[in-house]
C-alpha cells in the first residue's frame, strides 16, 4: 500500500509544545485539525523531568529515559530541533481518568504502605512530578500526532494504573488520559484504538475503557507474565512463553489490519514495550532487536498508510544494563524515522 504524501506549507517551527485546553476547556485549542502542517522532521516528545531519584538499587530502570534521547541524537537519528517539550499534566487533566480521592492522596503523599508496595515505588514528590510529566508527554504526543501524522515519546506506557490505584510501576495511566482527553475535545467523539504490545497485559487501560465504545483496547501479552489477574480488553491475545519473531509478527499481522478496517479509529495510541525481547529480565518471550524493529515498522506503517495518525510510547523494558535497554527502546524511534521517510511525511 502506498503512503499518502502530505503537502506542507512553510512556517516557523514551534519548539515548545503546549497542552492546550487542558486547564481551561473553554479555550480554543490551537492545534485543531485545520492548521496546515509545516515541513519538519519526526516529532519526538521528551522532558528532562521524566526522571526522578529512586532509592539505591531500585529495580525500575529510571535512567533509561534520558539515555533513549541521548542515543538517538548521538547516532544522528534525530536532532534536538525535533524535540517537543510537554507541560506537566494538570490535576484537572488527570481527573478525566483518575478519581478525585486518588489524585489528592497521590499528589499530597497520602498513599498508604500497602498501596505503595503494589506500585513498586516508594512515594516521593519526585515520583509524582515525573509521572505527571510523562503523562503530559503522552498527551502531547497524541496531539502532535493528530497534527503531523506521527509522533513518539521517549517515555510512556503506564498501562497498569487504574482510576483509583497504581500497580506494577504505573501510577497514572498516560494512555487512558491521552485517549479520554482527545475524545473529549473533538467536536465529534473521536474513536481511539490503543495497540498495546508490551509483554504485560494493559489491564488498567482495559478496565478504564471496558464500557467505552469509542475506545478499542487491543493487547498482545504473555499469559504467564504479570498481571496474573487479567482484565478484559476489547481484544486480548495471550501468547505462550518463548514465542519468537516470526510467530509474534504474524500474530500482530493477523489482527491489526482487521481492527483498523472494522473499528476505523481516528487516532492510534501505540505502546511499543520492548519487554517481549529475549533479554528482558521479566518478559518471557524471545523477540530479537530485529523482531522489535519489524514489529514497530509494521504497526506504524500500517496505520500511517491508512491516513490514521499514530502516537507511540516506549512502554516497558527491564534490564540492569540501562544503556543496552535504552538502545532497545530507541528501536521505536528509528523505525518511526524510517516510516516518516518512507511515507514522505
Amino acid at each position, binding site marked *: 500500500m502506498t503512503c499518502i504524501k502530505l503537502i506542507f506549507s512553510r512556517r516557523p517551527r514551534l519548539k515548545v509544545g503546549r497542552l492546550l485546553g487542558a486547564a481551561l476547556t473553554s479555550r480554543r485549542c490551537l492545534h485543531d485539525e485545520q492548521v496546515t502542517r509545516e515541513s519538519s522532521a519526526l516529532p519526538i516528545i521528551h522532558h528532562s523531568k521524566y526522571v526522578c531519584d529512586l532509592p539505591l538499587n531500585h529495580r525500575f530502570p529510571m535512567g533509561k529515559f534520558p539515555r533513549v534521547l541521548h542515543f538517538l541524537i548521538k547516532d544522528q537519528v534525530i536532532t534536538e530541533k525535533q524535540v517537543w517539550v510537554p507541560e506537566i499534566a494538570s490535576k484537572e487533566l488527570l481527573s478525566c481518568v483518575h478519581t478525585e480521592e486518588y489524585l489528592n492522596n497521590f499528589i499530597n503523599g497520602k498513599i498508604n504502605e500497602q498501596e505503595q*508496595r503494589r506500585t513498586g515505588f516508594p512515594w516521593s514528590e519526585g515520583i509524582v512530578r515525573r509521572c505527571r510529566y510523562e503523562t503530559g508527554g503522552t498527551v502531547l504526543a497524541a496531539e502532535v500526532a493528530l497534527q503531523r501524522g506521527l509522533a513518539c515519546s521517549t517515555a510512556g506506557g503506564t498501562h497498569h494504573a487504574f482510576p483509583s490505584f497504581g500497580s506494577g510501576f504505573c501510577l497514572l495511566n498516560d494512555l487512558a488520559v491521552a485517549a479520554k482527553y482527545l475524545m473529549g475535545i473533538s467536536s465529534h467523539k473521536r474513536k481511539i484504538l490503543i495497540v498495546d504490545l508490551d509483554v504485560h497485559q494493559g489491564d488498567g487501560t482495559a478496565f478504564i475503557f471496558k464500557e467505552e465504545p469509542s475506545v478499542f483496547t487491543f493487547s498482545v501479552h504473555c499469559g504467564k507474565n504479570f498481571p*496474573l489477574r487479567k482484565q478484559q480488553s476489547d481484544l486480548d491475545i495471550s501468547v505462550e512463553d518463548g514465542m519468537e519473531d516470526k510467530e509474534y509478527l504474524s500474530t500482530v499481522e493477523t489482527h491489526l489490519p482487521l481492527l483498523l478496517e472494522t473499528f476505523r479509529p481516528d487516532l492510534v495510541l501505540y505502546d511499543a514495550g520492548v519487554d517481549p525481547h529475549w533479554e528482558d529480565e521479566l518478559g518471557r518471550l524471545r523477540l530479537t532487536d530485529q523482531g522489535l524493529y519489524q514489529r514497530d515498522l509494521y504497526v506504524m506503517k500500517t496505520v500511517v498508510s491508512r491516513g490514521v495518525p499514530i502516537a507511540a510510547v516506549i512502554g516497558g523494558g527491564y*534490564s540492569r544494563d540501562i544503556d543496552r535497554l535504552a538502545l532497545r527502546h530507541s528501536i521505536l524511534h528509528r523505525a518511526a524515522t524510517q516510516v516518516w521517510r518512507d511515507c514522505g511525511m
Partner: protein
Amino acid sequence: MYNTKMLTPEDMAERGEDFNDVLDDWFIESLKTYKDLHVYQLEHPTQVIEWTSGKTVCVAGYSSSKNEILELQLPLKLFADENKGLCAERDFKVVHGGFTDGPVRCLRHVPGTRCVVTNDGLTSDLQVWTVGGDDSDVIRRTGSVAGRKRRRTDSEGGSRIAARCSTQVLHGAQSDDIQLTHLTSGQILYTPEITSSDPLSSLQFVSDDVFLAGCCNGNIYLTDTRTSASPQLSPAPASPGESVLWWTDAAAGVSSGSVVRLSSSGRAVISDLRNLGAAVSQAQLSVQSRRCNPDDVTVSWAPALPGCIAVSGFSGVVQIYNTSVWGVELQEVQPLFGHRGHAVSSLPEEGDVFITSHAWHPERPRTLLSAASDGSVHVWDWVDQSASDR
C-alpha cells in the same frame, strides 16, 4: 443443621482471581527484595537438597513407595552476573533422573565422584547411586552399604550421612551405631567408642579426620578418627522442664569454628568447636514452635556470609539470622531476612505449607535453595536491606 453453600463456578473463579492478585502483589514485592528468584514445581515434594556441582542439585521424593530421584540444573540466568540480560535460560532443568524403591530421607553427594548415597529412614542401610555417565541421563542404583542396626521405628529419624573424601562414607542413625565405611568394599574402617544410644539429627565432618555427631537430645560428640580415645561429649544446653529436639550445625566456611544448636522451641545457642560446653551467645528465634520430627528442621551456617545462619522447618518461611549481633543473655531476635515465597504461592486449599529443606550455595553469599511440602523448589538471591549494607 448447617447451611452448606454450593460453590458456583463464579465463586471458584473469584477465589482464583483473589489468589492471582496475591501472587501479583508478591511478584511486585519480590522485585525489590530479591536480586534473583526462580521457582520450580516438582511433581512430589523433596526433603533433601544436595549440591552435586556449583550449578546442580539432587532432590528426591519421600512417599512410602516408589519415588523419583532427580538431578536439577539451576537456571543459568542466576549465574550470569555480569551479563544477566544475555542469558535466556531462566528455568530449572532436569538433567538426570531415576527411581527409588522407598522414601529418601537423607541424601549426600560423595565428593570427587558422580555418586550420591541415600537412606530411606526404614533401615540403617544406605543405597549408592551413580548419576549419569556414558551419555546416560539416568540415575541408577549401583551399590549399597550395610548399616549395623536393622529396622527402625517411625518416631526415630533415619540415618545421617556425611562424606569427606571419594572412597568413604560416615553414617549412623544413633550415637552407638556410627561407622566410617569403605564405599565399595563395605569394610568398616572406624567406629567411635560411644555406648549411649541417642538418635542423631546430624553427622558432619569438621576436618578430614574429625567429625561431629549431633543428637536429637542436644548432646554433641566430637570424634577424632586418628585416636582410639573416646569422643568428647558435650551435653545439651540446660532446658529445664522442656522436652525438646535439637539440631546442630558446625560452620565450614567463613564462620569456621562456630557451632549452632537449635531447639524445637526456637532457642539457638552458639558455641566454639574448641569449647562446646560454653555458650558464646544465644537467642530466642521468632519461630512458631510446633510438634516436630527430627527430619523437619534444618539449621545451617552460611558458607560465605560471616555469622549468618538459615533456619527452616517451623513454617513456610526460611529465615536468615545474623548471630554476630547476639548476646550472652537469652533474648528474642528478629531475622535479617525471611523468604516467604513458598507460603505466599501455595494454594489455600492445600493447607499450611512447610519448608522441608534448604541449602546455601557453596560460594555465592546470599544465594539459597529451598524446598517445601507442596513440591515447590525455589532458588533465591536476596537483597540485604539492613542499614549496614556494603
